[in-house]
């Protein structure tokens, strides 16, 4: 923000006089305006976070309030990092993240590229495509279990309509190998429009004059695509990946309704596992340590990524 004459004047006016003139000084207004927000965030976000960190060093269990709470140091962290089940969960999450982001970026970018050709009615179709991402993931995820039903589900019917075979032969959410793909398909259906919208903004931000210049230089369309379109849309693509990455790392509602983490623990993403530890097994101390590890992971990865993103933007 560039300092305007008024704010400059306000900063130079001694507090007492400003009060007489304006009722309240700008500085106190600023504080009155910001304080409630900060206070609420401290109470509902930071205070619980600090509490989580504290709990993570204890063996506290919510369901046994009378048991004496012991300070266990880093034992919870040690146990988590040595637990093969948790590494399995991390792997499942990584698999989910990798494929959802890859597929959504490919389809989302392709769609944005096509829509950017400005055919008639593109606004209407864009709005229709966008619907899924605005809806409640839990409600939609629940309905996808219906679409995935082996005998009666629409999904199986459509797949076997094209490939042949019996729709009762496979169960997307009951099969160990198919379940991870069941959640990837549902997530892709839901969130591809998100990537598409951001890519579309990226493509629309490229000025026509650059393409006109390339056209004058007789650059082929193919070449224009790789040397103009892709590099200029890249910061937007990376932003889309950042958002999808953070959101899908936190993924809970859609998947918990779709598969509940099963079969076995093939689709147990970290948030689902954490929920089981914290609210079904009631291992509060242990799950607090788990939460801290997850938060540090997201925050660390996101910070590194944002640095990379800023480098790309500067180019």
């Amino acid at each position, binding site marked *: 923000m560039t300092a305007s004459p008024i704010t400059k004047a306000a900063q130079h006016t001694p507090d007492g006089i400003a009060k007489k003139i304006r*009722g309240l000084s700008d500085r106190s207004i600023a504080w009155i305006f910001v304080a409630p927000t900060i206070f609420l*965030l401290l109470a509902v976000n930071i205070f619980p976070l600090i509490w989580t960190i504290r709990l993570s060093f204890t063996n506290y269990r919510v369901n046994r309030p009378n048991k004496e709470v012991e300070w266990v140091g880093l034992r919870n962290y040690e146990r988590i990092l040595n637990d093969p089940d948790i590494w399995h969960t991390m792997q499942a999450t990584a698999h989910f993240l990798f494929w959802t982001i890859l597929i959504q970026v490919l389809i989302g970018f392709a769609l944005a590229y096509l829509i950017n050709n400005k055919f008639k009615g593109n606004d209407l179709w864009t709005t229709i495509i966008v619907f899924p991402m605005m809806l*409640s993931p839990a409600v939609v995820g629940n309905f996808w279990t*219906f679409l995935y039903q082996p005998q009666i589900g629409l999904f199986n019917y459509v797949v076997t309509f094209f490939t042949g075979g019996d729709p009762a032969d496979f169960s997307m959410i009951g099969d160990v190998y198919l379940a991870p793909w069941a959640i990837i398909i549902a997530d892709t259906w839901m969130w591809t429009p998100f990537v598409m919208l951001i890519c579309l903004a990226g493509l629309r931000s490229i000025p026509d004059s650059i393409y006109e210049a390339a056209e004058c230089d007789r650059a082929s369309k193919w070449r224009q695509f790789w040397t103009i379109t892709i590099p200029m849309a890249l910061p937007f693509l990376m932003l889309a990946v950042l958002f999808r990455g953070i959101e899908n790392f936190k993924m809970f509602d859609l998947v918990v309704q779709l598969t509940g983490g099963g079969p076995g623990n093939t689709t147990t993403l970290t948030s689902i596992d954490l929920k089981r530890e914290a609210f079904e097994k009631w291992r509060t101390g242990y799950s607090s340590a788990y939460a801290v590890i997850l*938060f540090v992971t997201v925050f660390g990865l996101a910070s590194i990524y944002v640095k990379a993103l800023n480098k790309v933007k500067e180019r």
Partner: protein
Amino acid sequence: MSFSVTEPTKGTKWFSGILVVIYAVITIVPLLWIIATGFKSPADSIAYPPVVFFEPTLEGYVNLFTDRTRATAEMLEEAGPPQTWYEEIARERGTVISGPSRYGERFLNSVIIGFGSTALCMVLGTAAAYAFSRFRVPLKDDLLFFILSTRMMPPIAVAIPIFLMFRNLGLNDTHLGMILLYTAVNLSLSVWLLKGFIDEIPMEYEEAALIDGYTRFQAFYKVVLPQAATGIASTAIFCLIFAWNEYAFAVLLTSGTAQTAPPFIPNIIGVNGKDWPAVAAGATLFLVPVMVFTVLLRKHLLRGITFGAVRK
């Protein structure tokens, strides 16, 4: 339109249009299927092969809003002829309506918590955004980043202490608790979005008002607020949709009085197990308002989903 080398050819446009329409149709099918299933009879809903053309019935909606018990012949005899059309639909299945279901309550909870948290969030968010936009706030960038970072936390990770805290304060399973919680979660979005909208309002307007003798407060609500109305409205819709859709906190922190619709709808069970038409009916009533809002929001959609990072 004037000729331009960058304008796609007619063939390209047709080709792009057809591909996009194909994708749109595929993507809309599951949604149409939800709506259609809501009007199917239980038999039609689980028919193989899936039926596209069927005789519509309101049975799903009746089942959604009522609790029913299986009735024996004598019970039916005793109850006499059905009094209302919905009673009649229930009778056809050999059941009698024993009372209203919980769906209405849960839906109302969603409305109360959604609108309550949105209103609170807009009041706090607009004030904070104005201050961040117009004043020198110490540590401004750090505070803004802090506000944004609260969104990165997995909800389950903070749910444990929030659960403990709410239990101590008596806020578990209350409307007030959920309103405060959703307000806090949405503040990051509303502050960032609104700051962007307010940044776009030229400062000269307020300066003129201040010179005319308005106080800062007056300049804020008489000059800035009307100018930012569109921005505030679209931000409010985003907050509302988020609170409306939220599931993780709702399922962990509410079970009865304050439970919202998302944790409730998947658990609708009929007399013979999972009642898909009723689930679909509940989902339809819950999802359609969001679709309407999406159409209203379409100009600001991109800005909202990226926290104002992309403004177009």
